């Protein structure tokens, strides 16, 4: 019960800061929208490459990637806030006030999820407004959002673990770069089958590839590799929750 109270308090404070500060809320909405515009608008001709078979069109194809990207970066950006809290000493206040400190990690994760849900809603509205076609039925889109929420959880827990180990804003690139690489070493612009060479080999073992392909399957109404995708996303979330809690223990030991 006290853990829940701590989690809610930490989440409230993080969300309050984000949504009352235009410098934080605008990039959160603008960047995914911008990537969606740049990829879906600028590269739509790629859909004409032989072998590119995605019935819902390039807008829907890119929407799934940008949605997952916003989920992952929503987590990382929340991680920046954690690093800032340690740098300014505010985290010490949280560590002191929270009887059960795992509630702090849960609070940050809850904030990252709520923060991303706003972005996801905004992005979805824009996508439908510009004519995105969806082939799936009732359950397919929620399944995509659930998958993205797991990606969000994995990303915030990864970033949280880094922030609590380094306890400095200098941790920013370390949080960001691996997430960037995992995202972009997946089939971002074309389906997996059209990738060749080293990038194909990397994409094959990249867990995000399963998530991306399954997500595109949901939007097309023909889900593929659903179990593998959920397994990969949930596996990452569990793995990084252990990473985050160990990070918390390291922060506690460091004082």
């Amino acid at each position, binding site marked *: 019960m006290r853990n829940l109270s701590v989690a809610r308090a930490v989440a409230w404070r993080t969300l309050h800061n984000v949504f009352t500060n235009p410098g934080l809320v605008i*990039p959160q909405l*603008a*960047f995914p929208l*911008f*990537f969606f*515009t*740049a990829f879906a*608008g*600028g*590269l*739509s*001709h*790629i859909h*004409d*490459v*032989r072998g*590119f078979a995605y019935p819902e069109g390039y807008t829907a194809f890119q929407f799934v990637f940008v949605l997952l990207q916003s989920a992952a970066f929503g987590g990382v950006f929340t991680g920046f806030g954690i690093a800032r809290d340690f740098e300014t000493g505010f985290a010490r206040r949280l560590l002191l006030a929270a009887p059960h400190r795992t509630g702090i990690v849960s609070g940050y994760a809850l904030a990252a999820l709520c923060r991303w849900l706003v972005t996801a809603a905004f992005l979805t509205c824009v996508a439908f407004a510009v004519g995105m076609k969806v082939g799936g039925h009732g359950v397919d889109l929620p399944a995509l959002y659930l998958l993205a929420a797991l990606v969000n959880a994995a990303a915030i827990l990864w970033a949280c673990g880094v922030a609590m180990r380094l306890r400095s804003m*200098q941790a920013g*690139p370390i949080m960001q770069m691996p997430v*960037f*690489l995992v995202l*972009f*070493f997946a*089939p*971002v*612009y*074309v389906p997996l089958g*059209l*990738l*060749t*060479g*080293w*990038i194909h080999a*990397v994409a094959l073992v990249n867990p995000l590839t399963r998530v991306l392909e399954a997500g595109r399957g949901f939007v097309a109404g023909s889900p593929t590799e659903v179990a593998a995708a959920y397994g990969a996303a949930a596996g990452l979330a569990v793995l990084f929750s252990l990473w985050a809690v160990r990070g918390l223990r390291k922060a506690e030991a460091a004082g």
Partner: protein
Amino acid sequence: MRTTVDQVALLARRSVLRTWRNPAATIFPLVFPMLLLAVNSGGLRAETHLPGFPTKSFVAFALAVPFIQGALFATMNAGTDLARDIESGFMSRLSLTPLRGAALLAGQLGGVIALGLVQACFYLAVGFVVGVRPAAGVGGVAVLLVFAALIALAFGSLGATIAIRTGSTESVQSLFPVFFVFLFISSMNIPRNLISTRWFRDAATANPVSYLLECVRSLIITGWNGEALGLGFGILAVIGVAGLSSAAAALPRRLAR
């Protein structure tokens, strides 16, 4: 005259050293554009199958992008360093010395140009390793380096203007998303004639960054193209003159003694 040259050299050296001693500022401009090049050249290779695509090597096509990203880093480096000098009071200390304002600006931009050239050499070397041979030959490589130096000068002076006018690193950093938008809404990833979404093609056509990209790209994949070179250097000249004159105009107020 000799004193001014010494001052410029000293300040340029300081500018290079402070970047060199900050690993994040040195490594990021070298590594990040190469990562993006790797990601995009892998993911977008299928584009070369589109009818009308100008080359069979997407890496050669995409190698122009790091040069323009160099502009972004030049702006940030020049602006952030100057703004930090203002915030920390170092500029006030300089204003108590007989240092000429022009020497300060030239020194800072000299350092940025030196770093821009290092970056350009690195990008070309990486391109060479993965098999890119500039179609315009050795002369083309020389022109590319001149172009890279001018990019650093022109965009560095824009960053310097913002820094001198606002005196705030935060204001300089806020330029980053603006440049980012200009870069992405351009012919960065696909030739303009192959952009099928009309509004995007129009935006890319109106965007000066497209012509800077196409200037570099022409030297790498097509050879000597007078129109592309003229547009690229012309746009750079306009940006440079505007940036330098506004920075020079703002400087006396900041250095008011």
